[in-house]
């Protein structure tokens, strides 16, 4: 075992990359849950985004177009969930599961001819001399634009939820859909838009895995990150900044176990690979005592007549 093989600067830069898919997926789900809907289909939307983005990037040669396609793909798939839960008033847990099962199949179908291909690379932003600052430079200023977008998205979500009318309406719908309806807000429309936003974010997160983090396409490559994102929203008590913190924590653990695998630690690879999932469970246990932060209407079906 050779722990000195782990370069702390590369490690930190690496875990920022590992955390980004989680940030996208989780911030999208946070908005969805704030509007009072529980979408368990994050994994399905992520993997669909991953292949939509990958295929588009390979065909057009443009990673940015790939990301746009990933967001579109994720949002389109989430519309299915919106239709089931908002129009036909189906059970949200079952519909979310259906979305994940369907998304995993759909992505495998779409991705058949893309196995083993390398996608075009998204260049890092050129910060000029900033990147040459010792320690901070390589950690903060050697990334692609999408990583910074993820960070900006968290800040924007926080600001919108806290300071704007839009955020207030969204939270009102999530806290009491009957009251929001009585005030004349279109509950179904607002929730559908929130669900689509969540789908687009999950799609972006998925594409970040297939285009930048790995970068390759393999079936089922999201490997539960969508589910960890769901846990992360609970972990963060539906607060954007805590979510960012949590994503870095999980990114750090993922990166650490990968580095330990590389460094040849005496623990078998399989047990290291279990660690992100086990830690998710432990964190959920520690933090699930306090549920007061959850939106009051989370998971409840809204029908205007009732």
């Amino acid at each position, binding site marked *: 075992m050779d722990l000195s093989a782990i370069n702390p600067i590369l490690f930190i830069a690496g875990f920022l990359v590992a955390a980004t898919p989680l940030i996208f997926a989780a911030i999208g789900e946070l908005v969805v849950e704030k509007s009072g809907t529980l979408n368990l289909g994050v994994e399905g939307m992520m993997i669909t985004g991953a292949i939509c983005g990958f295929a588009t990037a390979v065909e057009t040669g443009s990673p940015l177009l790939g990301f746009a396609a990933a967001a579109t793909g994720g949002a389109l798939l989430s519309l299915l969930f919106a*239709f089931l839960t908002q129009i036909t008033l189906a059970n949200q847990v079952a519909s979310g599961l*259906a979305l994940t*099962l*369907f998304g*995993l*199949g759909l992505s495998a179908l779409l991705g058949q001819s893309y196995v083993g291909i390398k996608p075009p690379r998204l260049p890092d932003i050129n910060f000029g001399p900033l990147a040459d600052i010792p320690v901070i430079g390589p950690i903060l200023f050697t990334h692609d634009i999408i990583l910074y977008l993820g960070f900006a998205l968290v800040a924007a979500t926080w600001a919108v939820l806290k300071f704007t009318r839009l955020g207030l309406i969204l939270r009102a719908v999530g806290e009491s859909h009957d009251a929001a309806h009585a005030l004349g807000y279109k509950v179904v429309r607002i929730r559908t838009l929130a669900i689509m936003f969540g789908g687009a974010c999950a799609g972006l997160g998925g594409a970040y895995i297939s285009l930048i983090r790995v970068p390759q396409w393999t079936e089922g490559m999201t490997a539960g990150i969508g589910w*960890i994102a769901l846990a992360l929203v609970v972990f963060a008590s539906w607060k954007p900044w805590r979510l960012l913190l949590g994503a870095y924590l999980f990114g750090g653990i993922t990166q650490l176990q990968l580095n330990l695998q590389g460094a040849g630690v005496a623990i078998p690879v*399989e047990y290291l690979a279990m660690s992100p999932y086990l830690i998710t*469970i432990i964190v*959920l246990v520690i933090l699930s005592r306090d549920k007061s932060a959850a939106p009051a209407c989370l998971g409840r079906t809204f029908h205007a007549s009732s």
Partner: protein
Amino acid sequence: MIRLEKRPQPSRAFSLATPLLAVVATMVFGGLLFAALGKDPLVAIKTIFWDPLFGEFSFFYRPQLLIKGAPLVLIAIGLSLGFKAGIWNIGAEGQYIMGALFGAGVGLALYPLEGFYIFPLMVLAGALGGWIWAMIPALLKVKFGTNEILVSLMLVYVAEQFLASMSLGLLKNPEGFGFPGSRNLQQYESAFNADLIEGTGMHWGVVAAMIAVIFAYVLLTKHRLGFAIRVTGEAPRAAKFSGVNPARLVLFCLGMSGLLAGLAGMFEVSGPAGQVTIDFNVGYGFTAIIVAFLGRLHPIGILLAGLLMALTYIGGDIAQSQLGLPAAAIQVFQGMLLFFLLALDVFTQYRLRFGRQEVA
């Protein structure tokens, strides 16, 4: 102007018709999907739904129906108990793996001993493995209020890694020339879950599935616990007043579904699969979720739904080899089925009203 109006009573007719309508809708849209993939949709549908039962080689495929249906029914029966009460175990895949590992582990530990007691011991171990794995989310939910959906699902990934570790390490066949995977239990007479009647596909897992169906039926219709499950799902507040103990219900529902999933894994590894390998699990634990809903969470319904879903697996395999239909297309097909089912289910509780809404 079309709107939904809540029915005073859920429609019994629609409750029964929805699964059938969903199957028809899935065939239509699945056919369109197959056409988009460049296959003749009618031939594809016939290959999937007709050939395994009545085609030229049906003598070979019919036993497969039982082999593939048994684990689906076993797992789905367990899941349905929890789903009815709003307790969501979606980690049956992990419990299935642990059952298989425990069961096979006991068998392999006793190798090359022969004895009538070996197989029953393996059955017990398999049930125990699945039960233990399901008790983790159950106990965490009861003690700390942790979300059982996320915990049970996380444990699937843990179990998959554990399976990889076992088939490369502890359970690896010492005479396997270094290949991953355990000894083949089919060649170990006392541990082999063989066909009870040669060539029918009728192994102990099928018997267990039948017993589970009857057990669940009696439980839900005749037993106090079944009443507790139903009332908790339909009216949680009423359940509280009628003295239902929610913690005990969580432990029972998750434990029972884990136990049955573990049994399914054990019967699979000791019979049709034969050995522990890295990719031993094929997603029965997830497909069983579809089976449970398609069967309307009713034991008899699940039995029929399990057979139908087994048919799509077998037909899918045939379509894959004969028509070159990708395996993923069948997965999409199965996912579609659940979508249509959930969407059409709205008509059980609501009916459509045309015309403008009058102001009361």
